[in-house]
Protein backbone atom coordinates (compact mmCIF):
# COMPACT_ATOMS: atom_id res chain seq x y z
CA UNK A 1 0.00 0.00 0.00
CA UNK A 2 1.35 3.35 -0.93
CA UNK A 3 0.87 6.14 1.50
CA UNK A 4 1.54 8.89 -0.91
CA UNK A 5 -0.77 11.41 0.63
CA UNK A 6 1.53 14.41 0.43
CA UNK A 7 -1.04 16.49 -1.32
CA UNK A 8 -0.11 20.09 -1.91
CA UNK A 9 -1.82 22.47 0.50
CA UNK A 10 -4.73 24.40 -0.87
CA UNK A 11 -3.59 27.14 -3.12
CA UNK A 12 0.06 26.26 -3.04
CA UNK A 13 1.63 28.54 -5.57
CA UNK A 14 4.85 27.79 -7.34
CA UNK A 15 7.64 29.59 -5.54
CA UNK A 16 8.25 32.92 -7.15
CA UNK A 17 11.71 34.23 -7.81
CA UNK A 18 11.36 36.65 -4.92
CA UNK A 19 11.12 33.91 -2.40
CA UNK A 20 14.01 31.76 -3.37
CA UNK A 21 15.95 34.25 -1.32
CA UNK A 22 19.53 33.20 -0.90
CA UNK A 23 19.69 31.17 -4.08
CA UNK A 24 18.78 34.04 -6.32
CA UNK A 25 21.65 35.03 -8.54
CA UNK A 26 23.06 38.41 -7.59
CA UNK A 27 21.38 41.24 -9.40
CA UNK A 28 23.52 42.73 -12.02
CA UNK A 29 23.89 46.39 -12.68
CA UNK A 30 21.28 47.61 -15.05
CA UNK A 31 18.46 45.52 -13.59
CA UNK A 32 16.73 48.74 -12.76
CA UNK A 33 16.94 49.92 -16.31
CA UNK A 34 14.35 51.51 -18.53
CA UNK A 35 11.74 48.78 -18.69
CA UNK A 36 11.82 48.34 -14.96
CA UNK A 37 10.99 51.98 -14.28
CA UNK A 38 8.42 51.80 -17.04
CA UNK A 39 6.84 48.65 -15.54
CA UNK A 40 6.81 50.00 -12.01
CA UNK A 41 5.36 53.27 -13.24
CA UNK A 42 2.22 51.65 -14.63
CA UNK A 43 1.94 49.16 -11.81
CA UNK A 44 2.13 51.90 -9.19
CA UNK A 45 -0.47 54.03 -11.00
CA UNK A 46 -2.94 51.14 -10.99
CA UNK A 47 -2.08 50.31 -7.39
CA UNK A 48 -2.91 53.90 -6.40
CA UNK A 49 -6.13 53.83 -8.42
CA UNK A 50 -7.15 50.68 -6.56
CA UNK A 51 -6.06 51.69 -3.09
CA UNK A 52 -7.02 55.36 -3.03
CA UNK A 53 -10.83 55.06 -2.97
CA UNK A 54 -10.52 52.49 -0.20
CA UNK A 55 -8.20 54.66 1.90
CA UNK A 56 -10.47 57.66 1.26
CA UNK A 57 -13.36 55.59 2.60
CA UNK A 58 -11.48 54.72 5.79
CA UNK A 59 -10.36 58.31 6.43
CA UNK A 60 -13.79 59.73 5.68
CA UNK A 61 -15.34 57.28 8.11
CA UNK A 62 -13.25 58.89 10.86
CA UNK A 63 -14.25 62.51 10.14
CA UNK A 64 -17.04 64.67 11.38
CA UNK A 65 -19.73 65.48 8.85
CA UNK A 66 -18.60 69.11 8.91
CA UNK A 67 -15.03 68.10 8.06
CA UNK A 68 -16.24 65.96 5.16
CA UNK A 69 -17.93 68.91 3.56
CA UNK A 70 -15.41 71.62 4.35
CA UNK A 71 -12.12 69.76 3.90
CA UNK A 72 -12.69 66.51 2.01
CA UNK A 73 -8.99 66.19 1.22
CA UNK A 74 -7.37 66.42 4.61
CA UNK A 75 -6.79 63.72 7.19
CA UNK A 76 -9.31 63.66 10.01
CA UNK A 77 -8.19 66.15 12.65
CA UNK A 78 -9.39 63.90 15.44
CA UNK A 79 -10.61 60.35 14.62
CA UNK A 80 -14.34 60.13 15.25
CA UNK A 81 -14.85 56.58 16.41
CA UNK A 82 -18.37 57.51 17.43
CA UNK A 83 -19.23 57.24 13.72
CA UNK A 84 -18.70 53.51 14.06
CA UNK A 85 -20.81 53.26 17.19
CA UNK A 86 -23.58 55.19 15.49
CA UNK A 87 -23.42 53.02 12.36
CA UNK A 88 -23.34 49.78 14.35
CA UNK A 89 -26.19 50.66 16.72
CA UNK A 90 -28.48 53.23 15.12
CA UNK A 91 -28.13 52.47 11.45
CA UNK A 92 -28.54 48.74 11.96
CA UNK A 93 -25.13 47.73 10.60
CA UNK A 94 -24.60 45.58 13.71
CA UNK A 95 -27.73 43.60 13.01
CA UNK A 96 -26.96 43.22 9.29
CA UNK A 97 -23.45 42.11 10.16
CA UNK A 98 -24.69 39.46 12.59
CA UNK A 99 -27.32 38.24 10.11
CA UNK A 100 -24.70 37.90 7.39
CA UNK A 101 -22.30 36.11 9.71
CA UNK A 102 -24.98 33.56 10.69
CA UNK A 103 -26.08 32.94 7.13
CA UNK A 104 -22.55 32.65 5.70
CA UNK A 105 -21.29 30.30 8.43
CA UNK A 106 -24.38 28.14 8.07
CA UNK A 107 -24.42 28.37 4.30
CA UNK A 108 -20.78 27.45 3.83
CA UNK A 109 -20.86 24.54 6.30
CA UNK A 110 -24.00 23.18 4.65
CA UNK A 111 -22.49 23.66 1.20
CA UNK A 112 -19.32 21.82 2.17
CA UNK A 113 -21.19 18.94 3.79
CA UNK A 114 -23.69 18.43 0.97
CA UNK A 115 -21.31 18.96 -1.92
CA UNK A 116 -18.64 16.66 -0.52
CA UNK A 117 -21.25 13.92 0.01
CA UNK A 118 -22.40 14.20 -3.60
CA UNK A 119 -18.90 14.59 -5.00
CA UNK A 120 -17.54 11.62 -3.05
CA UNK A 121 -20.24 9.28 -4.28
CA UNK A 122 -19.97 10.53 -7.86
CA UNK A 123 -16.19 10.33 -7.91
CA UNK A 124 -15.66 6.97 -6.26
CA UNK A 125 -18.73 4.78 -6.82
CA UNK A 126 -20.09 3.50 -10.09
CA UNK A 127 -23.82 3.03 -10.17
CA UNK A 128 -26.50 3.27 -12.85
CA UNK A 129 -27.44 6.88 -13.48
CA UNK A 130 -24.37 8.38 -11.89
CA UNK A 131 -23.53 10.36 -15.01
CA UNK A 132 -27.06 11.73 -15.20
CA UNK A 133 -26.85 12.89 -11.59
CA UNK A 134 -23.48 14.50 -12.29
CA UNK A 135 -24.72 16.37 -15.35
CA UNK A 136 -27.87 17.48 -13.56
CA UNK A 137 -25.69 19.13 -10.95
CA UNK A 138 -23.34 20.66 -13.51
CA UNK A 139 -26.11 22.07 -15.68
CA UNK A 140 -26.81 24.61 -12.95
CA UNK A 141 -23.57 26.34 -13.95
CA UNK A 142 -24.89 27.14 -17.40
CA UNK A 143 -27.92 29.25 -16.53
CA UNK A 144 -27.97 32.78 -15.11
CA UNK A 145 -29.62 32.99 -11.71
CA UNK A 146 -31.96 35.67 -13.09
CA UNK A 147 -33.78 32.97 -15.01
CA UNK A 148 -34.71 31.28 -11.74
CA UNK A 149 -35.30 34.28 -9.54
CA UNK A 150 -39.07 34.76 -10.03
CA UNK A 151 -40.06 31.11 -9.48
CA UNK A 152 -37.50 30.80 -6.69
CA UNK A 153 -39.19 33.60 -4.78
CA UNK A 154 -42.50 31.73 -4.85
CA UNK A 155 -40.96 28.35 -4.05
CA UNK A 156 -39.25 29.93 -1.04
CA UNK A 157 -42.45 31.70 -0.04
CA UNK A 158 -44.43 28.46 -0.14
CA UNK A 159 -41.92 26.85 2.20
CA UNK A 160 -41.98 29.89 4.51
CA UNK A 161 -38.34 30.53 3.68
CA UNK A 162 -38.53 34.18 2.75
CA UNK A 163 -37.50 36.62 5.48
CA UNK A 164 -35.83 33.76 7.29
CA UNK A 165 -32.15 33.27 7.94
CA UNK A 166 -32.33 29.43 7.89
CA UNK A 167 -34.23 29.69 4.60
CA UNK A 168 -31.45 31.80 3.11
CA UNK A 169 -28.83 29.33 4.38
CA UNK A 170 -30.53 26.45 2.56
CA UNK A 171 -30.96 28.47 -0.64
CA UNK A 172 -27.35 29.70 -0.61
CA UNK A 173 -26.22 26.10 -0.23
CA UNK A 174 -28.46 24.90 -3.06
CA UNK A 175 -27.07 27.51 -5.45
CA UNK A 176 -23.50 26.80 -4.36
CA UNK A 177 -23.86 23.11 -5.15
CA UNK A 178 -23.17 23.05 -8.92
CA UNK A 179 -19.71 24.57 -8.76
CA UNK A 180 -18.77 22.93 -5.46
CA UNK A 181 -19.82 19.48 -6.68
CA UNK A 182 -17.95 20.04 -9.93
CA UNK A 183 -14.76 21.09 -8.15
CA UNK A 184 -14.85 18.46 -5.41
CA UNK A 185 -15.70 15.59 -7.76
CA UNK A 186 -12.51 16.33 -9.64
CA UNK A 187 -10.69 16.55 -6.33
CA UNK A 188 -11.97 13.24 -4.90
CA UNK A 189 -10.92 11.50 -8.11
CA UNK A 190 -7.31 12.46 -7.42
CA UNK A 191 -7.25 10.84 -3.97
CA UNK A 192 -5.50 7.48 -3.70
CA UNK A 193 -7.80 4.47 -3.84
CA UNK A 194 -5.71 2.32 -1.54
CA UNK A 195 -6.56 4.26 1.58
CA UNK A 196 -10.28 3.69 1.21
CA UNK A 197 -9.65 0.02 0.53
CA UNK A 198 -7.44 -0.24 3.56
CA UNK A 199 -10.18 1.35 5.63
CA UNK A 200 -12.67 -1.26 4.40
CA UNK A 201 -10.27 -4.07 5.26
CA UNK A 202 -9.85 -2.59 8.72
CA UNK A 203 -13.58 -2.85 9.15
CA UNK A 204 -14.80 0.60 8.27
CA UNK A 205 -18.22 0.83 6.68
CA UNK A 206 -18.94 3.19 3.80
CA UNK A 207 -19.80 5.97 6.23
CA UNK A 208 -16.67 5.40 8.27
CA UNK A 209 -14.48 5.42 5.18
CA UNK A 210 -16.08 8.68 4.09
CA UNK A 211 -16.01 10.62 7.34
CA UNK A 212 -12.86 9.21 8.90
CA UNK A 213 -10.59 8.67 5.93
CA UNK A 214 -11.66 10.43 2.75
CA UNK A 215 -13.01 13.68 4.17
CA UNK A 216 -9.83 14.45 6.15
CA UNK A 217 -7.80 13.63 3.03
CA UNK A 218 -9.89 16.06 1.02
CA UNK A 219 -9.07 18.94 3.36
CA UNK A 220 -7.07 20.97 0.80
CA UNK A 221 -9.95 20.82 -1.66
CA UNK A 222 -12.47 21.63 1.06
CA UNK A 223 -10.41 24.66 2.13
CA UNK A 224 -10.28 26.00 -1.44
CA UNK A 225 -13.96 25.53 -2.07
CA UNK A 226 -14.73 26.83 1.43
CA UNK A 227 -12.89 30.13 0.83
CA UNK A 228 -14.54 30.45 -2.56
CA UNK A 229 -17.97 30.03 -0.98
CA UNK A 230 -17.26 32.26 2.05
CA UNK A 231 -16.45 35.18 -0.24
CA UNK A 232 -19.22 34.38 -2.70
CA UNK A 233 -21.92 34.05 -0.05
CA UNK A 234 -20.66 37.01 2.01
CA UNK A 235 -20.94 39.16 -1.11
CA UNK A 236 -24.24 37.78 -2.43
CA UNK A 237 -26.66 40.56 -3.32
CA UNK A 238 -29.48 39.40 -5.60
CA UNK A 239 -30.78 36.55 -3.41
CA UNK A 240 -31.12 38.63 -0.21
CA UNK A 241 -32.62 41.59 -2.09
CA UNK A 242 -35.35 39.33 -3.42
CA UNK A 243 -35.84 36.97 -0.48
CA UNK A 244 -35.28 39.16 2.60
CA UNK A 245 -37.63 42.12 2.45
CA UNK A 246 -37.95 42.56 6.21
CA UNK A 247 -35.27 45.06 7.37
CA UNK A 248 -34.63 42.92 10.46
CA UNK A 249 -33.41 40.13 8.17
CA UNK A 250 -31.28 42.23 5.84
CA UNK A 251 -27.82 41.10 4.82
CA UNK A 252 -24.93 43.56 5.12
CA UNK A 253 -24.50 44.64 1.48
CA UNK A 254 -28.24 44.96 1.07
CA UNK A 255 -28.58 46.99 4.26
CA UNK A 256 -25.82 49.37 3.21
CA UNK A 257 -27.27 49.83 -0.26
CA UNK A 258 -30.61 50.56 1.35
CA UNK A 259 -29.12 53.11 3.76
CA UNK A 260 -27.32 54.82 0.89
CA UNK A 261 -30.53 55.45 -1.03
CA UNK A 262 -32.83 56.23 1.88
CA UNK A 263 -32.81 59.98 2.12
CA UNK A 264 -32.51 60.07 5.89
CA UNK A 265 -28.98 58.75 5.80
CA UNK A 266 -27.78 60.50 2.68
CA UNK A 267 -26.68 63.34 4.94
CA UNK A 268 -24.88 61.05 7.38
CA UNK A 269 -21.83 60.44 5.22
CA UNK A 270 -19.54 59.65 8.09
CA UNK A 271 -21.91 57.00 9.44
CA UNK A 272 -22.33 55.42 6.03
CA UNK A 273 -18.59 55.39 5.44
CA UNK A 274 -18.13 53.74 8.82
CA UNK A 275 -20.66 51.12 7.71
CA UNK A 276 -18.84 50.55 4.43
CA UNK A 277 -15.56 50.16 6.30
CA UNK A 278 -17.13 47.69 8.74
CA UNK A 279 -18.45 45.63 5.85
CA UNK A 280 -15.02 45.39 4.25
CA UNK A 281 -13.11 44.51 7.42
CA UNK A 282 -13.87 40.76 7.58
CA UNK A 283 -12.98 40.35 3.91
CA UNK A 284 -9.77 42.30 4.46
CA UNK A 285 -8.85 40.11 7.44
CA UNK A 286 -9.54 36.86 5.54
CA UNK A 287 -7.51 38.19 2.63
CA UNK A 288 -4.60 39.35 4.78
CA UNK A 289 -4.38 35.94 6.44
CA UNK A 290 -4.97 33.73 3.43
CA UNK A 291 -4.18 35.83 0.36
CA UNK A 292 -2.36 32.95 -1.34
CA UNK A 293 -5.25 30.57 -0.84
CA UNK A 294 -7.81 33.22 -1.74
CA UNK A 295 -6.09 34.03 -5.03
CA UNK A 296 -5.60 30.36 -5.86
CA UNK A 297 -9.09 29.31 -4.74
CA UNK A 298 -10.85 32.07 -6.65
CA UNK A 299 -8.88 31.67 -9.85
CA UNK A 300 -9.37 27.90 -9.68
CA UNK A 301 -13.02 28.82 -10.01
CA UNK A 302 -12.33 30.23 -13.43
CA UNK A 303 -9.99 27.50 -14.58
CA UNK A 304 -11.62 24.27 -13.54
Amino acid at each position, binding site marked *: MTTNVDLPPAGAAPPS*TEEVGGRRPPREKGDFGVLNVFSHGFLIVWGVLVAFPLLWMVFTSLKTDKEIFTSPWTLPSKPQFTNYVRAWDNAGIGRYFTNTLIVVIGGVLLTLLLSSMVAYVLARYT*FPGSRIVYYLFIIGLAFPIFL*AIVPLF*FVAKNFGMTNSLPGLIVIYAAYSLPFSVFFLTAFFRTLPNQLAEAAFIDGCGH*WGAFFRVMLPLAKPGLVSIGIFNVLGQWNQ*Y*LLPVVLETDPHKYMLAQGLANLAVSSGYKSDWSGLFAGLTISMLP*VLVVYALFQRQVQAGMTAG*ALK
Partner: protein
Amino acid sequence: MRQGRYPFIISMLLVPFVLYVVFVLSPYAQAFYISLTDWSGYTAAKTFVGMSNYSKLIHDSVFWTSVKHNLIAVVAVPVVTIALALFFATMLNVGGRKGKAAIQGVRGSAFYKVIFFFPYILSIAVVGVLWSFVYDSTDNGLINGFLKSIGLGGPVDWLGDPSIAFWAILAVMVWVSVGFYVVLFTASMGSIPRELYEAVLLDGANRWSTFWRLTLPLMWDSLQVGIIYIGIQALDLFALVNTMSAAGGSGGPDNSTQVISNYLYQTGFKFGQFGYASAMGVALCILTLLLAGLTFRVTRRERLEF
Protein backbone atom coordinates in the same frame (compact mmCIF):
# COMPACT_ATOMS: atom_id res chain seq x y z
CA MET B 1 -16.66 -3.32 -0.73
CA ARG B 2 -20.04 -4.07 -2.22
CA GLN B 3 -22.07 -4.63 0.91
CA GLY B 4 -24.51 -1.82 1.63
CA ARG B 5 -23.45 0.18 -1.37
CA TYR B 6 -26.84 1.28 -2.58
CA PRO B 7 -28.28 2.34 0.77
CA PHE B 8 -25.10 4.37 1.26
CA ILE B 9 -25.22 5.98 -2.19
CA ILE B 10 -28.88 6.85 -1.84
CA SER B 11 -28.51 8.29 1.64
CA MET B 12 -25.55 10.41 0.54
CA LEU B 13 -27.34 11.81 -2.51
CA LEU B 14 -30.88 12.15 -1.24
CA VAL B 15 -30.79 15.41 0.75
CA PRO B 16 -28.52 17.40 -1.57
CA PHE B 17 -30.36 16.22 -4.64
CA VAL B 18 -33.81 17.07 -3.29
CA LEU B 19 -32.67 20.56 -2.20
CA TYR B 20 -31.04 21.12 -5.56
CA VAL B 21 -34.06 20.00 -7.54
CA VAL B 22 -36.51 22.01 -5.42
CA PHE B 23 -34.56 25.27 -5.20
CA VAL B 24 -32.48 25.32 -8.37
CA LEU B 25 -33.67 23.00 -11.12
CA SER B 26 -37.40 23.43 -10.63
CA PRO B 27 -37.24 27.26 -10.64
CA TYR B 28 -35.21 27.14 -13.85
CA ALA B 29 -37.81 24.88 -15.43
CA GLN B 30 -40.79 26.83 -14.05
CA ALA B 31 -39.43 30.09 -15.45
CA PHE B 32 -40.17 28.94 -19.00
CA TYR B 33 -43.77 28.14 -18.11
CA ILE B 34 -44.35 31.31 -16.07
CA SER B 35 -43.06 33.38 -18.99
CA LEU B 36 -46.06 32.08 -20.97
CA THR B 37 -48.58 33.34 -18.39
CA ASP B 38 -49.90 36.72 -17.33
CA TRP B 39 -49.12 36.00 -13.69
CA SER B 40 -49.08 39.05 -11.45
CA GLY B 41 -47.76 36.99 -8.58
CA TYR B 42 -49.86 37.68 -5.54
CA THR B 43 -52.99 35.93 -6.68
CA ALA B 44 -53.17 32.33 -7.76
CA ALA B 45 -54.70 33.45 -11.07
CA LYS B 46 -52.30 32.48 -13.78
CA THR B 47 -53.66 32.55 -17.30
CA PHE B 48 -51.80 30.94 -20.13
CA VAL B 49 -51.19 33.68 -22.67
CA GLY B 50 -48.83 31.93 -25.05
CA MET B 51 -46.13 34.09 -26.55
CA SER B 52 -47.77 37.41 -25.76
CA ASN B 53 -45.16 38.34 -23.13
CA TYR B 54 -42.52 37.81 -25.76
CA SER B 55 -44.29 39.90 -28.37
CA LYS B 56 -44.70 42.61 -25.73
CA LEU B 57 -40.99 42.32 -25.03
CA ILE B 58 -40.17 42.85 -28.70
CA HIS B 59 -42.10 46.12 -28.67
CA ASP B 60 -40.75 47.31 -25.32
CA SER B 61 -38.25 50.09 -26.00
CA VAL B 62 -36.86 49.99 -22.45
CA PHE B 63 -36.07 46.31 -22.95
CA TRP B 64 -34.17 47.07 -26.14
CA THR B 65 -32.31 49.88 -24.41
CA SER B 66 -31.33 47.35 -21.75
CA VAL B 67 -30.21 44.82 -24.37
CA LYS B 68 -28.13 47.51 -26.05
CA HIS B 69 -26.47 48.38 -22.74
CA ASN B 70 -25.81 44.72 -22.01
CA LEU B 71 -24.17 44.30 -25.40
CA ILE B 72 -22.04 47.43 -24.92
CA ALA B 73 -20.96 46.11 -21.52
CA VAL B 74 -20.23 42.66 -22.86
CA VAL B 75 -17.84 44.08 -25.44
CA ALA B 76 -16.33 47.06 -23.62
CA VAL B 77 -15.71 45.51 -20.19
CA PRO B 78 -13.88 42.38 -21.40
CA VAL B 79 -11.80 44.30 -23.95
CA VAL B 80 -10.59 46.91 -21.46
CA THR B 81 -10.25 44.50 -18.53
CA ILE B 82 -8.38 41.81 -20.45
CA ALA B 83 -6.11 44.34 -22.17
CA LEU B 84 -5.18 46.00 -18.87
CA ALA B 85 -4.74 42.66 -17.13
CA LEU B 86 -2.52 41.29 -19.90
CA PHE B 87 -0.45 44.45 -19.78
CA PHE B 88 0.01 44.35 -16.02
CA ALA B 89 0.61 40.60 -15.96
CA THR B 90 3.33 41.03 -18.60
CA MET B 91 4.91 43.83 -16.58
CA LEU B 92 4.80 41.69 -13.46
CA ASN B 93 6.22 38.59 -15.05
CA VAL B 94 8.74 39.70 -17.59
CA GLY B 95 8.98 43.42 -16.85
CA GLY B 96 12.26 42.99 -14.99
CA ARG B 97 14.15 42.08 -18.14
CA LYS B 98 17.01 44.21 -19.28
CA GLY B 99 18.13 43.12 -22.69
CA LYS B 100 19.94 40.01 -21.52
CA ALA B 101 18.85 36.44 -21.90
CA ALA B 102 17.29 36.38 -18.45
CA ILE B 103 13.62 36.91 -17.86
CA GLN B 104 12.32 37.89 -14.50
CA GLY B 105 9.42 39.55 -12.82
CA VAL B 106 9.69 42.99 -11.32
CA ARG B 107 10.54 43.36 -7.67
CA GLY B 108 7.53 43.31 -5.41
CA SER B 109 5.31 41.50 -7.91
CA ALA B 110 3.64 39.57 -5.09
CA PHE B 111 2.81 42.86 -3.39
CA TYR B 112 1.24 44.32 -6.53
CA LYS B 113 -0.84 41.20 -7.01
CA VAL B 114 -2.19 41.40 -3.46
CA ILE B 115 -3.23 45.04 -3.92
CA PHE B 116 -4.68 44.59 -7.40
CA PHE B 117 -6.72 41.53 -6.42
CA PHE B 118 -8.32 43.06 -3.35
CA PRO B 119 -11.32 44.85 -4.99
CA TYR B 120 -12.40 41.58 -6.59
CA ILE B 121 -13.17 39.96 -3.27
CA LEU B 122 -15.25 42.88 -1.98
CA SER B 123 -19.00 42.77 -2.15
CA ILE B 124 -19.89 44.28 -5.50
CA ALA B 125 -22.90 46.02 -3.96
CA VAL B 126 -20.70 47.63 -1.30
CA VAL B 127 -18.26 48.66 -4.04
CA GLY B 128 -21.22 50.21 -5.85
CA VAL B 129 -22.23 52.22 -2.79
CA LEU B 130 -18.65 53.39 -2.23
CA TRP B 131 -18.28 54.44 -5.85
CA SER B 132 -21.53 56.35 -5.85
CA PHE B 133 -19.78 58.55 -3.27
CA VAL B 134 -16.56 58.63 -5.29
CA TYR B 135 -18.71 59.87 -8.19
CA ASP B 136 -20.72 62.28 -6.02
CA SER B 137 -21.92 65.17 -8.15
CA THR B 138 -20.66 67.82 -5.72
CA ASP B 139 -17.08 68.72 -4.93
CA ASN B 140 -17.28 66.37 -1.93
CA GLY B 141 -16.98 63.41 -4.26
CA LEU B 142 -13.50 61.99 -4.62
CA ILE B 143 -13.22 62.56 -8.37
CA ASN B 144 -14.87 65.97 -8.51
CA GLY B 145 -12.87 67.07 -5.50
CA PHE B 146 -9.70 65.98 -7.26
CA LEU B 147 -10.66 67.74 -10.50
CA LYS B 148 -11.37 70.91 -8.54
CA SER B 149 -8.09 70.76 -6.66
CA ILE B 150 -6.13 70.64 -9.90
CA GLY B 151 -8.27 73.44 -11.26
CA LEU B 152 -10.26 71.53 -13.86
CA GLY B 153 -13.67 73.14 -14.07
CA GLY B 154 -16.85 72.57 -12.13
CA PRO B 155 -18.17 69.31 -10.79
CA VAL B 156 -19.27 66.65 -13.29
CA ASP B 157 -22.55 64.85 -12.56
CA TRP B 158 -21.05 61.42 -13.24
CA LEU B 159 -24.11 59.33 -12.41
CA GLY B 160 -26.73 61.95 -13.26
CA ASP B 161 -25.71 62.73 -16.82
CA PRO B 162 -27.32 60.23 -19.20
CA SER B 163 -24.39 60.39 -21.60
CA ILE B 164 -21.81 59.50 -18.91
CA ALA B 165 -23.63 57.46 -16.28
CA PHE B 166 -23.42 54.02 -17.88
CA TRP B 167 -19.74 54.42 -18.72
CA ALA B 168 -19.08 55.49 -15.15
CA ILE B 169 -20.66 52.25 -13.97
CA LEU B 170 -18.70 50.15 -16.47
CA ALA B 171 -15.48 51.77 -15.25
CA VAL B 172 -16.23 50.44 -11.76
CA MET B 173 -16.71 46.95 -13.21
CA VAL B 174 -13.25 47.22 -14.78
CA TRP B 175 -11.78 48.62 -11.54
CA VAL B 176 -13.14 45.60 -9.67
CA SER B 177 -12.10 42.94 -12.17
CA VAL B 178 -8.64 43.75 -13.48
CA GLY B 179 -6.76 42.31 -10.49
CA PHE B 180 -8.46 38.95 -10.81
CA TYR B 181 -7.30 38.54 -14.40
CA VAL B 182 -3.82 39.77 -13.55
CA VAL B 183 -3.54 36.88 -11.09
CA LEU B 184 -5.12 34.42 -13.51
CA PHE B 185 -2.81 35.40 -16.38
CA THR B 186 0.22 35.53 -14.10
CA ALA B 187 -0.43 31.91 -13.19
CA SER B 188 -0.60 30.82 -16.81
CA MET B 189 2.39 32.94 -17.86
CA GLY B 190 4.32 31.43 -14.98
CA SER B 191 3.78 27.93 -16.35
CA ILE B 192 5.51 28.75 -19.65
CA PRO B 193 9.01 27.26 -19.49
CA ARG B 194 11.74 29.86 -19.07
CA GLU B 195 13.90 28.06 -21.66
CA LEU B 196 11.46 29.05 -24.38
CA TYR B 197 11.97 32.71 -23.53
CA GLU B 198 15.70 32.26 -23.40
CA ALA B 199 15.63 30.55 -26.79
CA VAL B 200 13.65 33.29 -28.54
CA LEU B 201 15.79 35.96 -26.88
CA LEU B 202 18.90 34.32 -28.24
CA ASP B 203 17.22 34.35 -31.62
CA GLY B 204 16.95 38.08 -31.24
CA ALA B 205 13.21 38.47 -30.72
CA ASN B 206 12.18 41.74 -29.14
CA ARG B 207 9.64 42.11 -26.34
CA TRP B 208 6.79 42.92 -28.65
CA SER B 209 7.15 39.85 -30.81
CA THR B 210 7.95 37.68 -27.79
CA PHE B 211 4.59 38.65 -26.34
CA TRP B 212 2.56 38.12 -29.51
CA ARG B 213 4.38 35.06 -30.83
CA LEU B 214 5.24 33.23 -27.64
CA THR B 215 3.42 34.35 -24.51
CA LEU B 216 -0.03 34.89 -25.95
CA PRO B 217 -0.31 31.64 -27.96
CA LEU B 218 0.92 29.59 -25.02
CA MET B 219 -1.61 31.06 -22.61
CA TRP B 220 -4.52 31.01 -25.04
CA ASP B 221 -6.58 28.55 -22.98
CA SER B 222 -6.73 30.76 -19.94
CA LEU B 223 -7.34 33.82 -22.09
CA GLN B 224 -10.35 32.11 -23.65
CA VAL B 225 -11.71 31.13 -20.23
CA GLY B 226 -11.04 34.66 -19.00
CA ILE B 227 -12.96 36.29 -21.84
CA ILE B 228 -16.00 34.06 -21.32
CA TYR B 229 -15.88 34.55 -17.57
CA ILE B 230 -15.72 38.36 -17.64
CA GLY B 231 -18.30 38.40 -20.44
CA ILE B 232 -20.79 36.51 -18.30
CA GLN B 233 -20.13 38.85 -15.37
CA ALA B 234 -20.60 41.87 -17.64
CA LEU B 235 -24.01 40.50 -18.66
CA ASP B 236 -25.17 40.68 -15.06
CA LEU B 237 -24.26 44.14 -13.71
CA PHE B 238 -27.28 43.94 -11.40
CA ALA B 239 -25.53 44.87 -8.16
CA LEU B 240 -23.72 47.87 -9.66
CA VAL B 241 -26.72 49.28 -11.52
CA ASN B 242 -28.98 48.59 -8.56
CA THR B 243 -26.71 50.43 -6.12
CA MET B 244 -25.31 53.18 -8.35
CA SER B 245 -27.96 54.28 -10.82
CA ALA B 246 -30.01 57.37 -10.13
CA ALA B 247 -33.16 57.35 -7.96
CA GLY B 248 -32.33 54.28 -5.94
CA GLY B 249 -31.45 51.74 -8.57
CA SER B 250 -34.07 52.62 -11.15
CA GLY B 251 -31.61 52.22 -14.02
CA GLY B 252 -31.84 55.98 -14.51
CA PRO B 253 -31.37 58.73 -15.36
CA ASP B 254 -33.93 58.13 -18.07
CA ASN B 255 -33.01 54.43 -18.41
CA SER B 256 -29.53 55.43 -19.52
CA THR B 257 -28.00 52.79 -17.24
CA GLN B 258 -30.77 50.20 -17.49
CA VAL B 259 -29.71 46.57 -18.02
CA ILE B 260 -31.81 43.44 -18.45
CA SER B 261 -31.17 42.11 -14.94
CA ASN B 262 -32.22 45.33 -13.23
CA TYR B 263 -35.23 45.81 -15.51
CA LEU B 264 -36.27 42.22 -14.76
CA TYR B 265 -35.98 42.84 -11.02
CA GLN B 266 -38.07 46.02 -11.21
CA THR B 267 -40.70 44.46 -13.47
CA GLY B 268 -41.14 41.47 -11.19
CA PHE B 269 -40.50 42.62 -7.67
CA LYS B 270 -41.50 46.29 -7.90
CA PHE B 271 -44.37 46.15 -10.37
CA GLY B 272 -45.55 42.57 -9.81
CA GLN B 273 -45.52 41.53 -13.47
CA PHE B 274 -44.00 38.13 -12.86
CA GLY B 275 -44.93 36.55 -16.18
CA TYR B 276 -43.34 39.41 -18.07
CA ALA B 277 -40.25 39.38 -15.82
CA SER B 278 -39.81 35.65 -16.46
CA ALA B 279 -39.87 36.28 -20.20
CA MET B 280 -36.96 38.68 -19.65
CA GLY B 281 -35.20 35.97 -17.66
CA VAL B 282 -35.56 33.58 -20.57
CA ALA B 283 -34.27 36.27 -22.95
CA LEU B 284 -31.26 36.93 -20.72
CA CYS B 285 -30.57 33.21 -20.50
CA ILE B 286 -30.67 32.81 -24.29
CA LEU B 287 -28.39 35.84 -24.67
CA THR B 288 -25.93 34.38 -22.14
CA LEU B 289 -25.76 30.99 -23.83
CA LEU B 290 -25.47 32.56 -27.29
CA LEU B 291 -22.64 34.85 -26.28
CA ALA B 292 -20.76 32.13 -24.41
CA GLY B 293 -21.06 29.83 -27.43
CA LEU B 294 -20.04 32.59 -29.82
CA THR B 295 -17.00 33.57 -27.76
CA PHE B 296 -15.99 29.94 -27.51
CA ARG B 297 -16.24 29.61 -31.26
CA VAL B 298 -14.41 32.81 -32.12
CA THR B 299 -11.54 32.25 -29.70
CA ARG B 300 -11.02 28.62 -30.60
CA ARG B 301 -7.45 27.86 -31.57
CA GLU B 302 -5.46 24.75 -31.93
CA ARG B 303 -4.20 23.77 -28.56
CA LEU B 304 -0.46 24.25 -28.18
CA GLU B 305 1.45 21.75 -26.12
CA PHE B 306 4.60 22.64 -24.30
